[in-house]
């Protein structure tokens, strides 16, 4: 696949590229490198981010930030979904914000911050978005935040 090779050259040694169910997955080794990769990807034609998700793997000691990147302006790239993944340690989750490169991440990074407590360095408005005030310092989407589940018995 030609696109995969192109992305491999972009990523180089800073990350790992593989194909997962048709999507190109780029696992960035270090959070710091993500800005560099993102800049190159943007130059390649990936112009917006579809979703920013945090995934809690704190049992393995890290959170994963997943950016789903694609393109509106280049029709060939629009068919592809590029999954940009970066791992941050769960005790000090920090990662550079991609808002400079893709402004479309603004609200989604904010949501990931308030749900996981992942700090996106360089984000101009990193504060609560959806949750009420008392949720300061409590990150509901972390696995450590348990919600009551009911059984099937009355």
């Amino acid at each position, binding site marked *: 696949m030609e696109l995969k090779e192109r992305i491999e050259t972009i990523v180089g040694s800073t990350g790992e590229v593989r194909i997962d169910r048709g999507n190109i997955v780029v696992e960035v080794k270090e959070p710091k490198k993500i800005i560099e990769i993102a800049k190159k990807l943007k130059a390649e034609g990936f112009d917006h981010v579809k979703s920013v998700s945090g995934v809690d793997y704190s049992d393995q000691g890290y959170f994963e930030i997943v950016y789903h990147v694609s393109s509106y302006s280049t029709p060939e790239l629009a068919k592809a979904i590029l999954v940009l993944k970066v791992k941050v340690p769960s005790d000090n989750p920090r990662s550079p914000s991609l808002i400079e490169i893709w402004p479309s991440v603004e609200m989604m990074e904010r949501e990931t911050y308030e749900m996981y407590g992942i700090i996106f360095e360089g984000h101009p408005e990193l504060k609560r978005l959806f949750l009420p005030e008392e949720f300061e310092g409590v990150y509901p989407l972390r696995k450590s935040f348990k919600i009551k589940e*009911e059984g*099937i*018995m*009355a």
Partner: protein
Amino acid sequence: MGLLTNLVDHLKAIGTGLKYLIPRRLTLMYPEYVEKLPEGYRGYLRYDNEKCIHCSLCARICPANAIKMYRGGDKKLRPGINYTRCIFCGFCADICPTGALEYTTIQDIAYEKLEDQVYPPEKFAKGVPQPVYPEKPIFIIAKVDEERGLKYDRV
């Protein structure tokens, strides 16, 4: 030219307004008129105690935790439902392997108390609550109509 088309558009808008002054109403005057819902509408559930095989699939699939299993005197599990939670997705009826749970077309039930909406198995098995109307309603069937959008035929 712009001014003229503007004027024509104004007149067309007013003309359309005048055209619609002939009453043709889409509203269904509930509760004087009540729609008789087609078979398969996902309304209140009917529970048949006889058919129940105590498998608790209904409680396990219920997305809203509305159905709970109650252990009866004979140690068997039977479902009860809490209609304050029920979202009428019909999953329970669809997964019920024996047809002990089925949906009915009844939907417009009013309760005085929240507690009345909880149906333990015994109450659940007694039958479906029936809607109460202020006066005897005229039952209609809604059908798509080319001229009026929806048309309501008396049953």
